[in-house]
């Protein structure tokens, strides 16, 4: 679905992405893990066309994404911080996105909207919503149009435990429908049950891209958090 080759991006002297090559396939739920400043966000932004890479190519479903905007109709994106125009209502926001995606009349996925009860508060303006509710609106927008690829940036960070759990169930359900799901998160325990592949990045380098079973075998740890911790320790030992 997504083929990334030799992707390199520098911000001044800082190398945010260093020759990253990856292949992401449908029906996988992929966790993007790494310390702060490791290039995770830059990688996601490159996929979304927010950041233009210095070198390398990204081929999405057979088309190169450079100078292309149509491919983004196949991506649902939930940003880390959801901020919307203050005085428009939830319903108006959804209508606006429908207008932009030209998706009126297409089949929509309202499951998450109903789970979160947003349909009952659709006349509230964005200004009056709490941070967590705005986060729920972001999540609903990412799933609303049934996109084959869903990218979630720290999705559970602002959510209460119940809502986070409901979101995880939704992610798992969509993955099982054959969608490609890419998640970044520092809360590894959240990723445990929903991950099928792990991408680990550090200082702009792709350290590994493995299935979760492979990672468990290699490290001998059952929990993702412990497995990653053991990888990080090993790396630190190598550097010293």
């Amino acid at each position: 679905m997504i083929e990334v080759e030799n992707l390199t991006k520098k911000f001044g002297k800082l190398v945010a992405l260093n020759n990253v090559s990856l292949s992401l396939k449908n029906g996988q739920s992929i966790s993007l893990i790494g310390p702060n400043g490791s290039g995770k966000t830059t990688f996601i932004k490159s996929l979304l066309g927010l950041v233009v890479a210095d070198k390398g190519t990204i081929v999405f479903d057979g088309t190169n994404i450079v100078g292309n905007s149509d491919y983004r109709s196949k991506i649902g994106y939930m940003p880390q911080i959801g901020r919307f125009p203050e005085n428009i209502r939830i319903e108006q926001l959804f209508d606006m996105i429908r207008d932009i995606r030209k998706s009126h009349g297409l089949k929509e996925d309202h499951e998450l909207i109903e789970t979160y009860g947003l349909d009952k508060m659709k006349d509230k303006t964005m200004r009056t919503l709490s941070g967590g509710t705005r986060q729920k609106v972001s999540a609903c927008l990412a799933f609303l149009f049934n996109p084959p690829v869903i990218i979630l940036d720290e999705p559970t960070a602002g959510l209460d435990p119940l809502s986070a759990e409901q979101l995880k169930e939704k992610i798992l359900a969509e993955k099982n429908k054959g969608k490609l799901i890419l998640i970044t998160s520092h809360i590894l325990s959240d990723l445990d049950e929903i991950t099928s592949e792990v991408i680990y990045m550090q200082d702009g380098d792709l350290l590994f891209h493995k299935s979760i079973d492979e990672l468990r075998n290699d490290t001998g740890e059952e929990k993702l958090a412990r497995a990653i911790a053991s990888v990080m320790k090993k790396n630190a030992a190598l550097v010293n």
Partner: protein
Amino acid sequence: MGKISKYVILDLIRNRIVLSYLVVLLAISFSLFNLDSNPVKGILGLLNISLLIVPLVSIIFGTIYYYNSAEFIELLLTMPIKRKQIIISVYAGLAVALSVAVLLGMGIPILIYSPNATGLTLLIVSIALTWVFVSIAMLASVLTRDKAKGIGVVILLWLYFGLIYDGLLLLILFTFSDYPMEKSMVALSALNPIDLGRIYILLQLDISAIMGYTGAIYRDFLGSSIGMVFAFAMLFVWIIIPLLLCIRRFNRKDI
């Protein structure tokens, strides 16, 4: 393109700052017209509002709105829509919303007290200046990443166009007073949209000779009607050029 503009406008017509702007404009306009029985004096008072307050509000509000919408613009950029369309829509939405505030806030009092060509000219210039300064605000916001820095830059720009530029012009005039300066003065005043607005209105009022040097030159040099066409065309250029530069930068920007 109209799709995003529509919702920007929907958002802005319920924005408290835009509503206060409308109310303040109404209050100032009514009180200026009521100060003197001669509506021309009211128009002259409004001229200063239109040349200083309208640019100030447009440039600062435009900048703040852009920065406050940064996360939302980022989300829009992840949709299947071209960058150019997004930035033009946000610009158009902002400019239309602020123009409506001017149209109502200054237009209603003008319609009541001075419903003539002069009043209409003043209104047109105020709206043109709104579009010019929102355009400059967008360019400044796209060029600077930091909000505080961006707002500082636009305040400096407003000071420059509104106050400092005229001082510089006078300085040049005195320094080179031995030379014929008319042609260069026409050119130099075209470099400041506020000057252009002033000249446009003064040519219409036909009192340009007593209202500043550049106005008199425009009248002598170009004649009223050609001068007005020239001033208006230059104002239009002042809308287009910053907007084009803004689009160009925005298209290549890493978000």
